C-alpha cells in the first residue's frame, strides 16, 4: 500500500455484480452446482433476474449450461491471502472461479457442461488479460464502465512495474482528473461501454474486440523520413 495515496475502497461482490452487468455478462443464465463427494452443497441458477437458489438441483432446467464445482472428499482448502488475478477481482462468484490459477485439488475442480460456454470463458480470460495490458501502460489508471440505465462504476489502478499496488473503487469525491493525474508519473482514464449481444459467445467476442483494441500500443508517428 502506498501511504501517500488516499483510500480507495476494495472492490466488493456488489461492485463485481455491477461490473458484470456493465460488461453484459449478467444477461445469460447458467446453473452452478457445488458438491462434496456426492452431496450437493449448493445449486443456484444465475441469470438476468439475479440468483435463484434451488432446493432440489435435479429440478433445474436441463437446457441450461452447467458450471459444476467438485470438492474432493472434504472441502477444498486455499491460501488465505493469495493474490487474485484481474479476472478474479473484476468478475463475480462463481464466474471468477473459472480464472483460478491454482491447481484443481486446491480449489475444487470446475467443469462446464457446454463446450461453447467453456470456450467463451477461455476467451473472456484473454479479453481481461488484454485489459490488464492496457492498464499496465500507465502508473495511474481509471476504468469507467457505463451502460444504459445503470449507475457508472469507476475503478482506480495504481500500477508499478506491471504490478497493481492499489486496485479499488474510485469514490465520487476523488474523481477529479487533475488531482488523479498528480498521483503518478503517467495517467489514463479509460471509458468502456460495450454493446449488448444476445448470446454469451457474442458478448464475449464483443468484449474481446473492445479490450484488445484498447491494449494495442498507440500508433507512433512514422519513423521513416521518406515514406512511400
Amino acid at each position, binding site marked *: 500500500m502506498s501511504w*501517500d495515496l488516499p*483510500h480507495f475502497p476494495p472492490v466488493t461482490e456488489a461492485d463485481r455484480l455491477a461490473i458484470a452487468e456493465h460488461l453484459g455478462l449478467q444477461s445469460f443464465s447458467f446453473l452452478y452446482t457445488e458438491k462434496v463427494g456426492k452431496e450437493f*452443497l449448493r445449486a443456484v441458477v444465475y441469470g438476468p433476474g439475479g440468483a*435463484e437458489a434451488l432446493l432440489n438441483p435435479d429440478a433445474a432446467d436441463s437446457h441450461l449450461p452447467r458450471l459444476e464445482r467438485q470438492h474432493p472428499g*472434504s472441502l477444498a482448502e486455499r491460501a488465505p491471502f493469495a493474490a487474485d488475478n484481474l479476472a478474479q477481482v473484476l468478475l463475480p*462468484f462463481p464466474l471468477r472461479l473459472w480464472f483460478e490459477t491454482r491447481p484443481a485439488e486446491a480449489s475444487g475442480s470446475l467443469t462446464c457442461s457446454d463446450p461453447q460456454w467453456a470456450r467463451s470463458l477461455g476467451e473472456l480470460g484473454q479479453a481481461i488479460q488484454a485489459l490488464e495490458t492496457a492498464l499496465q501502460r500507465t502508473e495511474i489508471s481509471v476504468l469507467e464502465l457505463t451502460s444504459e440505465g445503470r449507475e457508472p462504476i469507476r475503478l482506480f489502478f495504481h500500477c508499478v512495474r506491471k504490478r497493481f499496488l492499489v486496485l479499488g473503487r474510485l469514490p465520487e469525491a476523488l474523481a477529479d482528473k487533475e488531482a488523479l493525474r498528480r498521483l503518478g508519473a503517467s495517467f489514463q482514464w479509460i471509458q468502456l461501454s460495450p454493446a449488448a449481444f444476445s448470446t454469451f459467445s457474442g458478448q464475449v467476442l464483443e468484449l474481446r474486440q473492445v479490450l484488445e483494441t484498447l491494449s494495442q500500443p498507440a500508433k507512433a508517428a512514422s519513423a521513416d523520413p521518406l515514406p512511400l
Partner: protein
Amino acid sequence: MPESSPRSTEFQYWEEPSAQWASRLSALKAQGTDEVHCFIPWGLHESVRGIRDFSKTSKLRLERFLSQAHAAGITVRVTVGFPPRRESLPDWALPLGEISALVPAGIWKWGAQDLALTRIPSLHDDPFFLEFLEFVSDTFALLSLYRFPEGPLVGVHVDWGVYKADQGASLAGSYGNFLQERYPQASLINIRYGATFRDYATATSAQGMRVLLEKRPWLAAYDYKHCRARLLQDRGEALLNLPTAGPLTDLLAFEMPQVRAEKASWAIAVDPTLLESGAESMYPFTPLGFAHAQAGAAFRLWEHLRAKATRGGAKLHLLPTQGDCPAERVTVVAGRFLELQSARLLRAWAEAGARVCFPLGLPQYDENLAGIDWKASSPKPALRGDGLTRRWAMGMGEFVFPESPGAPENDFWDKLRRFDGEPHLGATP
C-alpha cells in the same frame, strides 16, 4: 460516558492520510457525528515481529488520532481482534503454531461466497495467541490513557471475528475438556449418539467428528459450537487477566450491542445450527471440511430464503435472536431439533401475541434430546384443526403448523410466504 445514543460512523484512521484526520473528524462532527468506530489492526501495528508501531509510521499514530478525535468533540469506540480483514493478521504470524483454524474462504472477501476453507494459525495454539496477547497488552496500556472524559475512548470491543466460524476448533487441545462439560462421562456421548467411543480423545479426533456428524448431525453441530464458544470464552478470560486490562474493564465488551429493529408485519426466523455465519454471508457447517447431507440441505434452504427474502423485502433472523418479537407473524424455519433457548423464546413471542408459524412442522427435540414440551408454561392450548393445519392458542397469540409437513421443494418460498394457517395452504398436498 455520554448518555444519549450518539450518531456514529466507521473511521479507519490507518486508511486515511494522517494529515487529513483533523479536517475529516471536524467535518464529521459538523455533519452531526458524535462517535467513530475504528479497528486497531495487529497486522499493521506489528508488521515486524516484536516491534509495535504506534508512533513511527504517520498513519499508525494512534495517540495522535485519539487526541484529534477528542479535540473535535468526537468519542471513539475501538475494536481489537480478528475481523475478516487482511490487516487483522501480520504476515510473520501466519506460519506460527502447530494447529490451524479452518475459516471459510469467502469470509475474507465481504459478500463473497467461496465455500473452500482457508488455514490460518489457531487462536488456541499458544505460540500464536501469546504473540497476540502481547500486542493487546501494549494496546490496552496506551488506550487506558484516553478514557472518557479525559480522552475520547468510550468502548473497547474484542472481536474474535473469523475465529467465530472456525471449522477446526476440535483440533484445540482443550476442546475435549469442554465436551466433558456437556457430557461428564464418555459413555453419555455414546448414549446420545448411539456410538462406541472409548474416551473423549477418540470422540474429538477427526474420525470421531465424522462419526458424530454421521450419527446425529444437528446434535454434533450444537456440541461443536458449544465447545467452540467455550474455547473463545477461555481466550477472553486470558485477555481480561492482562494487567493492562484492569483500567479498561468497564469499557471492554466481547459482543457489540444489537441495534433494535422496528417491528415488522412478518419475519422469518431460521435455526442456524447447521450453518455458520461470517462477514455478511452464511456457510454450511463443515467441521474439518466434512460436509453432511443435512448441512448441505440447510445451506441450500438458507440460500433459497435469502435470495427470495431480499427481493420480497422480508427480514431473516437467526435463532435465538436477542430482544423482543421482531414481527406480528413469525415463520420459523427449523427441522425436528431446536435449541431449548429458541423454543422458549418462540413460546414467549406467541404468548405475547405473535402468530408463530412452523411450515416444516413443530420441532420435537432439544439439545439434550429431550422432547420439547411446548405446552408446559401456558394453560392447555386450545387446539383447532381442519385436517391440514393445526392451530394452538398460546396466551395472546398462537402456533400454526401443518398436520403432515413435507420436505421443502423448489417452491418452498411460495408455500412459506402463504403459510399463515389458511386451511388450503397449510399442508403439502
